């Protein structure tokens, strides 16, 4: 299979990268950003993407760091899934993201694929996104006019559609440290046990107060179920302030299922996904509570 012809640029700094993207855009050219390449290379092979220019940002070393700064973890978009899975900082403070990254593709894909790529590609089945959503992550986009920061949920417009401009680059993912009381769970559901795209995935973090016997707070996000990633706020509301009982859990599951259908409409997959969303929410909440 031959690949489409394009020019290739390999900037070393964010500034150069943005300048190149901007200049190409001004000329009316299609310029695309190459990070790990695990999505892009497939699109090039299929020729579903035919760029004039490929801007390879993998040499922009400032984008490969994982740092803790005060009450937040800053993750460079070039951090790979393998790095997320093995990083002590990530595992200690935002383990759910590490768990999510561990389920991506295969060892080979995890070594190449990046967090930034997973976000910007905006697949509804992306494994890291539900984790980032419940972690209240913020994204930094850098364009010719400077930076803008937005909550991750504001980044997506639909499947494979985001608000990023053609001359903007995702340059940082900021994850505020979750409260130490929080217990988190990531579940992935796929047709086989490895090397699989999520049929559904779910990230959940909650604080269950054992003294008061109530959920103090709950954050839930189910991937591959809604047109763009959102928190399952209806289910969260039902749980918060309530005790850990089957009746409450059932209601929360039901609410999550209904919210999914309200956002996605009835589709051929609804017959499967609707009951599963509900039951998965229940399972995740139980597992999180069992974590102590």
């Amino acid at each position, binding site marked *: 299979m031959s690949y489409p012809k394009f020019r290739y640029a390999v900037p070393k700094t964010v500034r150069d990268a943005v300048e*190149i993207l901007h200049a190409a855009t001004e000329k009316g050219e299609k310029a695309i950003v190459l990070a790990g390449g695990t999505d892009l290379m497939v699109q090039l092979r299929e020729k579903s993407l035919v760029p004039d220019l490929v801007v390879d940002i993998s040499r922009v070393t400032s984008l490969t760091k994982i740092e803790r700064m005060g009450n937040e973890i800053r993750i460079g978009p070039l951090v790979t899934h393998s790095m997320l899975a093995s990083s002590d900082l990530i595992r200690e403070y935002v383990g759910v993201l590490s768990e999510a990254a561990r389920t991506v593709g295969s060892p080979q894909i995890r*070594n190449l694929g990046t967090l930034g790529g997973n976000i910007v590609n905006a697949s509804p089945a992306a494994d890291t996104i539900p984790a980032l959503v419940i972690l209240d992550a913020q994204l930094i986009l850098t364009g010719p006019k400077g930076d803008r920061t937005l909550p991750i949920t504001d980044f997506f417009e639909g499947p494979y559609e985001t608000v990023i401009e053609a001359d903007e680059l995702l340059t940082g993912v900021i994850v505020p440290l979750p409260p130490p009381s929080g217990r988190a769970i990531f579940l992935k559901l796929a047709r086989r046990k490895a090397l699989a795209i999520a049929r559904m995935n779910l990230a959940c973090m909650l604080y269950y107060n054992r003294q008061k016997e109530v959920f103090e707070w709950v954050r839930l996000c189910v991937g591959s179920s809604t047109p763009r990633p959102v928190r399952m706020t209806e289910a969260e509301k039902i749980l918060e302030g309530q005790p850990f009982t089957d009746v409450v859990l059932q209601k929360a599951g039901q609410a999550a299922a209904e919210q999914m259908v309200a956002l996605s409409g009835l589709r051929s997959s609804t017959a499967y996904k609707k009951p599963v969303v509900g039951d998965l929410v229940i399972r995740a909440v139980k597992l999180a509570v069992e974590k102590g």
Partner: protein
Amino acid sequence: MEEKLGEEIVEISAMVNGTSVVLRTPANRTMLSILREDLHLTGVKEGCGIGECGACTVIMDGKVVNACMVLAPKMDGATITTIEGLGDEENLHPLQKAFIEHGAVQCGFCTPGMILSAKALLDEKPHPTRLEIREGISGNLCRCTGYQQIVDAIESVAEGGMEEGR
């Protein structure tokens, strides 16, 4: 900023199987095609071209990757090991020996990639459990063996240590 943004032809300088390689190539190629066509390293196989089968697995800067998922210019500055760089008939790597001893090969098309995944796994985790071995080779599809003799082979090297081969 120069008038022309980017280049259609790029120069790559890489260390492949211990040999330094310099070449010029159109940018719109994969590392897989460079390794197979330009460097004649045909132990790197193409099975799907979309990162799903693992037949083109090579070790790049210490990590296993699908060569079909790497745009050729990304090879610049990289250190790459293919099956040809692991060992030859006079000097087999312990994993190659173990694959022979355990009959862990049938059609053999997945074998080079499988062995490289096993090597990267053992480099990182010298004493994996059988489940960890399965996880470590989960990006390498094999349709012939059912994996069991492969897991046996890798486990035998993990148990016996592979210091001599490193």
